[in-house]
């Protein structure tokens, strides 16, 4: 096996045809900038950020619905902090809170159990957003809601499955030559889940953790695979990720959720790319099926192009002009995992 230094030399010295690698997960984008990985790459290798930021792919219309619920008398909207500043069509949740809406930041969706028990006459809506990483937590929450007999909690879901989105990207232009597989999502799905994707689209994938070494190893692995014309799903994060994934979590997800066509901000509808509550648990749903994706992005925001790697943030005329972290026009500028926000924060 090659040492990290040897891998760095190889990815720096590469002089073949240009290669486009996509890091699927926003946390990888963050780590790549933190460690300065771009400085290590041959000009022939480019890293493109993918759609793996849950905040970024949530439709604007979802934010508006959530804000509207927060403003209802006797209702509370519970959310993770990074959703607060995402602009919907009618403003953000932070603005809804300022207008008197009851928006509470949760550190875990389980926080709602205590709140709902303390205020049985109040309706608590959970902004259930995320990929397979957070999905099992919502399944566990459902388990607790049923156990405790709590009837005043609802889920407004915009839960996403990563694999259909990767298929979608492979089928669209321009082509990607390899995927840096997401670390957290893969802990649930397992590395074998990517094999059909790799085979179908003849594309290599390397699942990695978030350290400097892991990311370098993954880029090197993908370069070797591209050169050898192989298309395997490799797992470099073996201390965290197994081949078969977290079966217990997957079972729990299956108990409460079912795949459905889902709306992705910027991408549109993708078949079977979302998770919704099964019909028998519909009474816990806060009208998630009414979230639509028809509205055009405000001020010509190109987040949708950024999250599939079609353009880089700097190609968007809004980037750094009317769109900054202080006045984000789209979700990619808001989230810590959003490509535009990460680019903006790190531009030297």
């Amino acid at each position, binding site marked *: 096996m090659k040492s990290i230094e040897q891998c760095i030399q190889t990815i720096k010295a590469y002089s073949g045809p240009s290669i486009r690698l996509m890091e699927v997960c926003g946390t990888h984008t963050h780590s790549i900038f933190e460690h300065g990985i771009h400085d290590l790459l041959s000009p022939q290798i480019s890293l493109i950020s993918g759609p793996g930021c849950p905040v970024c792919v949530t439709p604007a219309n979802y934010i508006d619905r959530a804000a509207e619920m927060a403003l209802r008398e006797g209702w509370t909207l519970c959310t993770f902090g990074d959703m*607060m500043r995402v602009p919907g069509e009618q403003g953000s949740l932070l603005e809804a809170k300022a207008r008197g809406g009851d928006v509470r930041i949760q550190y875990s969706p389980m926080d709602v159990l205590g709140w709902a028990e303390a205020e049985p006459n109040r309706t608590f809506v959970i902004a259930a957003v995320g990929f397979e990483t957070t999905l099992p937590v919502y399944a566990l929450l459902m388990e607790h809601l049923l156990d405790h007999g709590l009837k005043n909690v609802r889920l407004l879901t915009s839960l996403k499955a990563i694999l259909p989105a990767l298929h979608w990207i492979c089928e669209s232009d321009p082509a990607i030559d390899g995927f840096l597989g997401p670390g957290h999502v893969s802990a649930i799905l397992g590395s074998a889940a990517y094999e059909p994707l790799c085979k179908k689209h003849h594309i290599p994938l390397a699942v990695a953790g978030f350290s400097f070494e892991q990311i370098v190893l993954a880029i090197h692995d993908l370069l070797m695979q591209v050169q050898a014309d192989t298309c395997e799903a490799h797992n470099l994060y073996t201390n965290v990720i197994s081949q078969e994934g977290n079966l217990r979590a997957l079972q729990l997800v299956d108990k409460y959720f079912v795949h459905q066509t889902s709306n992705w901000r910027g991408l549109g509808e993708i078949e079977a790319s979302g998770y919704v509550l099964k019909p028998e648990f519909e009474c816990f749903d806060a009208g998630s099926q009414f979230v639509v994706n028809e509205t055009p992005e405000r001020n010509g925001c190109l987040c949708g192009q950024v999250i599939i790697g079609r353009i880089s943030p700097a190609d968007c005329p809004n980037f750094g002009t009317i769109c900054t972290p202080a006045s984000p026009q789209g979700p990619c500028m808001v989230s810590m995992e959003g490509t535009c926000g990460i680019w903006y924060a790190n531009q030297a």
Partner: protein
Amino acid sequence: MKINAAHGGGGKLMNRLIHDIFEKHFANETLSAMEDAAVLNLPAGKIAFTTDSFVVTPLFFPSGDIGKLAVCGTVNDLLMRGAIPKYLTAGFILEDGLDTETLEQVAASMKQAADEAGVQIVAGDTKVIDGKGGLYINTAGIGLVETSLNVSVHRAEAGDVVLLSGFLGNHHASIQSGRLGIENKIQSDCAPLNDMVLGLLKAGVEVHTLRDITRGGLASVLNEIAEGSGVCIGLDGGLILADAEVQGFCDILGLDPLYMGNEGKLVAMVPERDAQKALSVLHNARYGENAQRIGKVSACEKPIVTIRTRAGGTRRIDTLQGEGLPRIC
């Protein structure tokens, strides 16, 4: 006893509150005279004057409370201009339902912090509002500044060395743990920094800039200095900026020590020739045992703050945007 509207009404109950709690703990000649305003005998020269308000919850946290914070916050702001802190005022806004025992505990803690910082609380005010037993404090402070001294956010110079007085994030992590019900041993770093700052001045270190690293964290403070002085600040790579427990806490919640608030840490800009002496003063001062040299100031056209990356390049460190909020994954 619980605080009620009558405690703010100007009558008997309010007088008893002032006498039994504030005067009992803060007693000094000026305050005890119970005049409408304190009249202070100050030597001729420059004074530093500042104010700050404190709304922290929970009111008590490991190694501190809102009272200690209210004294240290204002004292440290005075120190950051090179002032010797002398006098504070304290305004209390009490929500009805607050336990008088709680208030007394906070007052006792303020007295203890004031004694350590060498300041007297010479004037005060109390108001009672509707609420759920909350407590808010405003303090204002006066300090004396040596006439020739100018420690300022506008004075960092190319060639200055950046010194950090200790590990980052302990206060933030301690408060956040309290709010989230996470059990750990993280203590707030809330402390008055007199020993450090007055030590630097006494040792004859030419201190250009001092800033206490509160809200927004080191990243935001360094950006303010870069902007204020029209310089670039470059941090070294591979720095250990947080202790192991705080770093672990940050890793779990997706927080970055560079953006976390502190209540007893400072950053200092001093010329290279004084850097070693300054570092040794910090090391020997109270709360400065983990002080370290973290970077350098350089001349540049556009003021920014950067850090060396593992790959040998640099990346920009921007001011905190919004709040440091917990993330989805």
